[in-house]
């Protein structure tokens, strides 16, 4: 069989594309942003809130690394961990759905020993960690250490019985040397499910059958993993102990405290890296005969530019998040400046803020090499992939895969003149089997044709001047920067980021019964002038984040 009969392919295409936009969401990946067409007050049409069921997420690799560094101190050896999965874009969702693989458990075992060996190798360091030089593996100060250590590592106070067991373990394995016992028991604590899994079960909520509220310590854990990508500090656990996380105002105060800590910057960076798919830059595949300048170091710089741009808007300015789409400055190092054909001040080291000249065609997240590269093929640009990225990532719309048995390349034609990609994509518009979906992607992505597959500006393609005219739902533009300005004003973009950060924070997909929570967060986001940090504060204070369904155990 070569290709499907035309009519079948056409049917698949029509089903695939026209059936999605504007419908009520029928599947987890569907769009709530477009579901509320007509601008009526959202809560009027939304189902009654009911909390989602519990999730049991393991720590992601980043959370594991951050946590052991917070617990044992920095400067520990880098340990090998199995890579995270990222269904629905987020590693936290993968950690909540996947079963730990044998190799993962193996890696945790090895890591616990390597890390504790390093942490206990230096006398000053181990004394500082444990708080004493133990005279015996079960000395009172050892017990006090485990009381402190387990509270932070497990994000809750250990029970007396648990403490007894850890002290006994230390005694048993420390017969010859007290430090060895303490070290082994610490390694055991790091392999306990109480450390490796985020056990968040909630407690019954009076008067609300079927609903449980996360306990104060569970909320401390949720706040820390969401806002820091790590375990809580003692201050947050103390706040939990005194009930400060049970009240809206003090919960917000505590969230704002966390957001002032540098850990929050790395957590927000992690969110955007996953949301924007920048993980694809690790091991970026580009044909070296076409793009010899691509190196792992350049790809790392690409990623760093976006992270700095986001961090600048979100933290340094604590400003309107949408500025990332219309920013007229960015952060470049010498590598990227070379790629962009821009100068950085002489003597500048590392990354420097650069104001982007108008004739550079740059400005906006969309003109960063990172975004331009992850939306291209190894050997060419892809207006389809770029358009799809805008639709799916930034507007939270859904574009299905092509129907089966359709040739996915575009013939070069036989006119003798090498056609531009725009010419070749004409087939997507002419062929009704393709047009259903491609009319939503290609006109958007063609507006990026002023940048090549590694994010270099270009004025010529296939020997002809570049034509970077694009069209997003009838709004025409020329060039990726102009599209950025359009997206900065598009309400779908803000709604989409709310949904994505909610998934990131809850480690699951939102349910239909949470549509009201999302709509409320959208409104609060807008009311706070789209300040991303305020969105995070409102998110962790929302009922969706603080309650869980009682599944009757």
């Amino acid at each position: 069989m070569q290709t499907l009969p035309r009519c079948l392919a056409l049917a698949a295409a029509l089903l695939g594309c026209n059936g999605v936009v504007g419908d009520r969401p029928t599947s987890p990946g569907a769009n709530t942003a477009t579901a509320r067409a007509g601008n009526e007050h959202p809560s009027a049409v939304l189902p009654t809130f009911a909390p989602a069921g519990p999730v049991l997420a393991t720590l992601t690799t980043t959370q594991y690394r951050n946590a052991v560094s917070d617990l044992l101190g920095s400067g520990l050896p880098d340990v090998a961990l199995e890579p995270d999965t990222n269904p629905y874009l987020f590693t936290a969702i993968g950690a909540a759905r996947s079963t730990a693989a044998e190799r993962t458990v193996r890696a945790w075992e090895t890591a616990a020993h390597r890390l504790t060996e390093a942490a206990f190798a230096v006398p000053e360091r181990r004394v500082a960690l444990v708080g004493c030089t133990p005279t015996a593996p079960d000395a009172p100060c050892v017990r006090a250490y485990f009381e402190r250590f387990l509270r932070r590592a497990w994000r809750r106070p250990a029970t007396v019985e648990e403490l007894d067991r850890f002290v006994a373990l230390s005694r048993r394995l420390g017969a010859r040397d007290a430090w060895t016992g303490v070290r082994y028991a610490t390694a055991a604590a790091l392999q306990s499910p109480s450390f490796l899994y985020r056990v968040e079960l909630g407690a019954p909520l009076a008067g609300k059958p079927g609903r449980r509220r996360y306990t104060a310590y569970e909320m401390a854990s949720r706040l820390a993993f969401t806002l820091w990508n790590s375990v809580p500090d003692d201050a947050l656990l103390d706040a939990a102990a005194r009930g400060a996380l049970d009240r809206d105002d003090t919960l917000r105060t505590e969230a704002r405290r966390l957001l002032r800590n540098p850990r929050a910057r790395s957590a927000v960076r992690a969110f955007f890296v996953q949301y924007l798919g920048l993980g694809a830059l690790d091991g970026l595949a580009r044909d070296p005969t076409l793009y010899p300048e691509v190196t792992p170091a350049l790809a790392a710089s690409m990623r760093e530019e976006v992270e700095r741009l986001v961090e600048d808007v979100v933290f340094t300015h604590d400003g309107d998040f949408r500025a990332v789409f219309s920013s007229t400055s960015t952060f470049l190092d010498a590598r990227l400046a070379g790629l962009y054909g821009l100068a950085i001040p002489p003597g500048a080291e590392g990354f420097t803020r650069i104001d982007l000249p108008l004739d550079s065609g740059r400005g906006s997240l969309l003109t960063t090499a990172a975004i331009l590269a992850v939306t291209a093929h190894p050997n060419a640009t892809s207006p389809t992939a770029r358009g799809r990225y805008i639709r799916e990532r930034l507007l939270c719309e859904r574009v299905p895969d092509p129907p089966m048995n359709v040739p996915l390349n575009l013939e070069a034609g036989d006119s003798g003149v090498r056609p531009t990609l725009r010419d070749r994509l004409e087939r997507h518009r002419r062929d009704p089997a393709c047009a259903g979906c491609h009319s939503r992607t290609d006109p958007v992505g063609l507006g990026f044709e002023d940048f090549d597959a590694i994010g270099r500006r270009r004025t010529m393609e296939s020997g002809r001047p570049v034509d970077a005219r694009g069209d997003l739902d009838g709004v025409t533009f020329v060039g990726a920067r102009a599209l950025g300005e359009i997206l900065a004003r598009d309400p779908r973009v803000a709604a989409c980021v709310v949904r994505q950060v909610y998934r990131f924070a809850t480690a699951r997909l939102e349910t239909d019964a949470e549509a009201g929570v999302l709509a409320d967060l959208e409104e609060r986001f807008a009311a706070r002038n789209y300040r991303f940090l305020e969105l995070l504060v409102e998110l962790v204070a929302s009922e969706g984040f603080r309650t869980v369904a009682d599944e009757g155990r």
Partner: protein
Amino acid sequence: MARTLSRRTLLRGVFGGSLVSLALPPLEAMLNSHGEAWADEPGPIRRYGVFFWGNGYAWNTRGRADRWTPTSTPLGWTPSEQLAPLGPDAAGRSMTDRVSVITGLEPKTDIPATPGGQGDGHMRGVAVALSGDRPRSEGFHHPDHIFALNRPTLDQVIARHPRFYGTTPRFRSLELSVSNNRFHDYGTWTAISYNDQESQNLPIRSVDALFDQLFAVRSDDTTDRALLLDAVADDARRLQGLLGARDRQRLDAHLEHVRTLQRELTDAQAACQMPSRPGRAGGFDGTAGNEALLDKVDAMARLLALALQCDMTRVFTMMFTGPGSQTVFRDVGATTGLHQLCHDENWELSRRATIYSMQCFRRLLDILAATPDVGGGSVLDHTVLLGTSEFSAGDVHEVGNFPVLLAGGGSGALRPGAHIHMPDGNLASVHLTIQQALGLGVDAFGFNGGQTRDAISQLLR
């Protein structure tokens, strides 16, 4: 714990064009990894393995001649161009009598209408090839990065089948991955072996890690490390009662891994032939676009063969390249990943990459064939080895005429060396044949429209 080394006897011979040393089999009195003598076990040892490569073969669609399907002969088959590496090598030795080629098969699993696109994509190909089922419908949103298998892959069905292992093996299965390239950054595309829907068996990705897992001399703290795991298991059991059914299962699996690890730390290490750590100037892994794939297959296959010979495990999967992989076949002159080359219709490089992949498969076969087995014959003689991919013609994501190679003798249960052409045949018949060759007493296989009761009888003795 001190390592017991068996008497080492070396067999020298020319192998893969170079001089190599091969270990002779363990003596009959040798013990398996649990200290029980093999002689106590019923029936011959049978093993199952998978060699998987991504993106199918260089296509026969759109005006291209079929360069995959071999020519049938009265005694077997003559290789096609793309299967040529299985034919005579420089020394004139052929593998065609050890490998059967089955052509014409296609998956019969149904294709749900919504969400659209479920007939397409690498996921269905992998799912039908390795699990006999279609993937879960939720897996069909490209940017969601989901590899949503619906059930365990066949290797785990076999490894967990009550009739398969007589005693608990040292490793229930070994998963190996050769190329480090992945399809985008999709974290779920890193494994082709599944215990269940969300439970992957992540592969060992480096030669060093494989060597360490199989043969590294233990450190002296293993007893304490194992003992400490009791405390970990205690904590896990305490947690069990608080969880819902699905999460309880996840924690159960985690506990099982803890016990496996504990057993490994405390059990007597098997008396196996002890190879030296494989080395290669520049290492085996290279960088993206610069991978020494054949050398890595060679090194991994040698370690694997010794592990099989020593009965550390009887099930393995070797993911040569991943589903949809962007592996750059440097050795055939490619500079762009194979997934892209296929969609660009770069037929010449795709063809060369297919042939190269078959050379790597051949290397695995050579090594298994040259490794003597316990009860006589070679490791390959006692193995059923499936070579397959997720597509036939990768350029259009075609699954008709699915690539299926079935190698090994299955301890006499399998009749190798045939070309069976089964136009419109059910792909699941291969899975059924494999299970019957392994003596599992299974008389039907396949799911969601792909069920069959027809094994390929010509392949079974």
